[in-house]
């Protein structure tokens, strides 16, 4: 749910990074945080366990500049990927404007990717959204891993609606901004419809 404030001429959008455990959702956000201009970024909030596994969510507010005289701000969230945190994942999708699915390219994780997309569809539905129409991007992360499956094979398994598909190595920043941009583009174009 986009929040458009005519008084302060601001528009806030919520983007959620989704995907199986250890696929690199937090790494994506961390890289954006480290690269962003200090004036543009807010604090990175991480609710994580002692071993740095996301417990509830990570949150990063980003000021993007202005469009048509409105200040555009993105609120980036990650969900906890581990299967047993499903209740938390559902809560974080509440009111989101777009979803980035981070898939783990390593072959042994392919089943976890498929399960996580199915879980995303269910949780979106419970929040009143349709996975087939919400702004959505598929990121193939960890392309540098020796056990990475070929991109076309992953496409066959994971891509289902002609969504933008971006290859990434999030810990080096490859594909991270492209992914965010592909999602932002869909959200802003959606706003065109009013």
């Amino acid at each position, binding site marked *: 749910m986009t929040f458009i404030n005519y008084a302060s001429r601001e528009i806030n959008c919520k983007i959620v990074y989704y995907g199986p455990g250890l696929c690199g959702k937090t790494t994506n956000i961390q890289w954006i945080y480290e690269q962003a201009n200090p004036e543009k970024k807010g604090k990175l909030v991480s609710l994580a366990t002692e071993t740095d596994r996301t417990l509830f969510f990570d949150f990063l507010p980003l000021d993007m500049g202005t*469009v048509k005289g409105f200040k555009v701000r993105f609120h980036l969230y990650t969900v906890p990927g581990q299967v047993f945190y499903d209740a938390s994942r559902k809560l*974080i999708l509440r009111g989101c404007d777009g979803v980035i699915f981070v898939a783990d390219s390593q072959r042994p994780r392919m089943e976890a990717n498929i399960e996580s997309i199915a879980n995303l569809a269910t949780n979106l539905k419970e929040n009143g959204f349709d996975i087939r129409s919400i702004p959505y991007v598929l990121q193939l992360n960890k392309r540098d891993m020796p056990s990475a499956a070929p991109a076309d094979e992953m496409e066959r398994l994971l891509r289902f609606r002609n969504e933008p598909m971006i290859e990434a190595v999030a810990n080096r920043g490859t594909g991270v901004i492209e992914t965010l941009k592909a999602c*932002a583009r869909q959200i*802003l174009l959606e*706003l065109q419809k009013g």
Partner: protein
Amino acid sequence: MAKLDLVMYEEEYKALQDIIGRLQRDAQAKVVFLVDKNGQQIAAAGDVRSIDATSLASLTAGNVAATDGLAKLIGEKEFSLLFHEGEKDNLHISIVGKRGILVVIFDQNSSLALVRLRVKKASRELQEIFDKVEIRAQSESGGSARFESPFSEITDEDIDKLFGD
């Protein structure tokens, strides 16, 4: 789809701002925030510079969402009030209508009883404005949309510019 954007105009925003400004003074609170349930800050009053408002908004919404989940687990509709007591400062969090959260931060200059009393009155007033915003949004999402999105003419170039290309 259940997607209904929250669009707020100057007049509504001013009315909300007036109410929470008054609440902050009447309750002798340090800061009052109005946040939406999705984690976005709507308005604030008091010494807001001392606090990271954006993080506060998202964490409050997360807190309320988690508590909502707990309520449902034990068969309650919601817990409409949360109170966190600190050594110096306290947080009073309450739900306003379907989509608002009111956060009051206060210290020993005020009391829980006073805050609760003032919050009750302010909540009713805030609720009325939220209702108005919702009714307007619904009528605008119907066929006779007089609301024209300011983004109706957004271009790919505009989007590229946001990313500094």
